[in-house]
């Protein structure tokens, strides 16, 4: 073309036209939701680094944040499956409590490491089985069945402990929480969380179990008419959530060196909130493990930053509430524009 070079004003007018497709292409590949959650997490780390540069970015502090996040994180992975299937599990905190006290009774501790791990997992899966049978085959509403489990499991945990803290005396269990057990600076508990996350992601995205979960949550009638055994799938999902609670209970035993009936208090709310922040639809049919885990990390990073800045738990609670509302509003907006 023989035209002169266009003036700057003209070129600025053209740039906005050219940019959105490129941005959208990137976003489509990497998923806007995940990116925005990563952005929030990065922003929080920046805030932590600026307000308390020495304490927040200290290795020990980061290890602590991740370790604390691991227990709720494992529970959240199970919760995400349940919510994606259109259900809810209010009993996770109570199951963690029951599993942790059952696994730390004097009788169980006699069997050592294996006895504690085995008991925690069996109790978790057992509670999940009761939930699953009531919901899938007793046609009970998940909210009610798991609310009943919440009450009963907490009660049973109190009965077992009589309100007393059960100290763990098995050295091999306690050693897992010690610094000596860290591999390349990563605490074993965090590794368990990472492994559960990866397995959870693979199961949800790459297996028939994951597909059925999404189908049952997205449209149970269509799933049934497509030949999926909706009831059995629901049963398995509550078993899975119970299994995650059992693993989390073991992590908590390692972390606290004890079993208490007050363990796992309000884990259900943290797990549900993390899943929602991560973009899981409470009505089912859509959700990601990545989003939920980022939601957990965001929660625990905030808690840590607040604690380092001497803001008490009341302020933390208020902030958590505000974050949930903000996350849902932002997501609704991105959903309506796409």
């Amino acid at each position, binding site marked *: 073309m023989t035209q002169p070079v266009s003036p700057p004003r003209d070129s600025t007018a053209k740039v906005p036209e050219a940019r959105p497709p490129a941005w959208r292409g990137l976003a489509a590949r990497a998923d806007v939701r995940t990116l925005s959650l990563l952005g929030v997490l990065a922003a929080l780390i920046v805030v932590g680094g600026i307000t308390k540069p020495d304490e927040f970015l200290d290795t020990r502090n980061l290890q602590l944040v991740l370790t604390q996040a691991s227990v709720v994180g494992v529970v959240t992975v199970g919760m995400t499956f349940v919510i994606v299937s259109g259900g809810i599990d209010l009993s996770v905190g109570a199951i963690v409590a029951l599993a942790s006290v059952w696994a730390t009774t004097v009788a169980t501790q006699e069997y050592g490491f294996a006895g504690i791990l085995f008991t925690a997992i069996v109790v978790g899966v057992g509670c999940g089985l009761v939930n699953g049978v009531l919901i899938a085959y007793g046609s009970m509403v998940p909210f009610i069945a798991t609310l009943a489990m919440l009450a009963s499991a907490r009660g049973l945990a109190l009965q077992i402990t009589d309100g007393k803290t059960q100290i763990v005396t098995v050295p091999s269990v306690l050693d897992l929480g010690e610094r000596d057990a860290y591999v390349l600076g990563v605490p074993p508990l965090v590794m368990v969380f990472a492994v559960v996350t990866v397995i959870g992601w693979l199961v949800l995205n*790459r297996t*028939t179990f994951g*597909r059925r979960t999404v*189908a049952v949550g997205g449209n149970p009638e*269509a799933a049934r008419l497509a*030949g999926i*055994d909706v009831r059995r799938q629901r049963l398995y999902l509550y078993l899975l959530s119970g299994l995650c609670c059992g693993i989390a209970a073991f992590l908590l035993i390692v972390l606290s060196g004890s079993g208490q009936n007050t363990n796992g208090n309000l884990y259900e709310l943290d797990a549900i909130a993390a899943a929602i922040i991560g973009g899981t639809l409470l009505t089912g*049919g859509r959700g990601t493990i990545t989003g939920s885990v980022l939601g957990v990390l965001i929660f625990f990073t905030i808690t840590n930053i607040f604690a380092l800045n001497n803001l008490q738990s009341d302020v933390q609670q208020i902030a958590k509430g505000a974050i949930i509302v903000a996350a849902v509003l932002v997501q609704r907006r991105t959903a309506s524009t796409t």
Partner: protein
Amino acid sequence: MAPEPPLLSMSGITKSFPGVRALDGVDLDVQAGEVHCLLGQNGAGKSTLIKVLAGAHQPDTGSIRWHGEEVTLRSPIAAMRLGIATIYQELDLVEHLSVAENVHLGHEPTAAGFIVRGKTASASTAALLKRLGHAEIDPARLVGDLSAAQQQIVSMARALSHDVRLIVMDEPSAALDPDEVDNLFRIVGDLTAAGVAVVYISHRLEEIRRIGDRVTVLKDGRAVAHGLPAKSTPTREVVALMTGRNVEYVFPDRPLSPPPGEPVLTVRGLSRQGEFEPLDLEVRPGEIVGLAGLVGSGRSEILETVYGARKPTAGQVLVDGRALRPGSVRAAVRAGLGLAPEERKAQALLMLESVTRNVSVSSMSRFSRGGWIDRGAELGAARAATRELSLRPDNPSVPVRTLSGGNQQKAVLARWLLRGCKVLLLDEPTRGVDVGARAELYAVIRRLADEGLAVLLVSSEVPEVLGLADRVLVLREGRVVHTAPARELDEHRVLDLVMEGSPA
């Protein structure tokens, strides 16, 4: 033309939902004091039209005139303020509130602006109920304790508690006994005598003859006839308008002789109490058997019972001579049955998912080992199945919700094609499918049959059944009244059979 403008005049109303155009330029004129009947099959657009009239849906284009003046019905409250009341088919009452509370819901008589004056509400409710001929209903009773007919009266009382000029009744007689229907008609008569207009929706043509003044027939989102005289238009003409074609379709050729071989699907004495009477039928590989009947004839119920989605009262379904466990969808699917249900979005599709995942959902074990999905194989198989049906766009990774109705139906067919099913059950296969895409779908169905599939087809559109099926069973009120090869029947004959007993 009457010098006085009609009470209500809707013109050129269009309304689209993702994937389907529910209303396509509908006109409706209603005069004060008339009973204007709205007729049409399920999915013809009646519900959407009355929701536009009730202010619950906003039309995309078109205008609404009220007493000759253009109005916009932004919300149900706006419609109510003008004097338009709607009694929906699914009654919108609050079961745990009393009759009086329901009648005055949203406009309770109050003292000092917020204290509900219960006695006033009770008294006015009692007066309304008396006017409706049901003084025996106690305004203090909970609505949940009333019968369906009584609840309908309460719903009507609620409509009348406003200063109503036009009242829309959506299938008001569906839940009523004959003597209750008589009372309903008396009320309708009183209302029209007082100058109130009634828009009356019903499938029952004999009712429309009794109380209707004029009829507007909807089909595929269009008004195919306006203001027909309700009393003198021949039934056959009305039914033909409801079920007939606006366009002549090219149906694929069918084989000259019935396909040989043993039946793959055999139904013996299958029945469901209150829905359909014992039914026998056989479908051979390569054969398309059609069930023709109007709404309420038991068509969909039969198909869903064959598929195991409903549990039969009696009878058996056999595939290749082996009886299926009754009431088990999984047994049916395993034996080789596949269903393309009437309500595609609600019953078949995972709307948040891609075409691939919708297609592969019934055959996941074929692309997985130990529960692990081979996504490459899955995508390849989904692509092959959707290509075979010429599904557009030719990219199975797109979300299924972005497809047109016809292509969504192809996705459902591809699901069963991929699974390799032997018997395809099609419930209203062209419902919500654009007129242009239907011929293509017919060709696909015939081709599948030619390749050896047995097809059991249900449709309320008589020409569709006659054009596509080899053999036709005509249903009326849950009973097969006639069976014949499709080539020996014509539309008029079938319509007479379907309407038998009504004045023709």
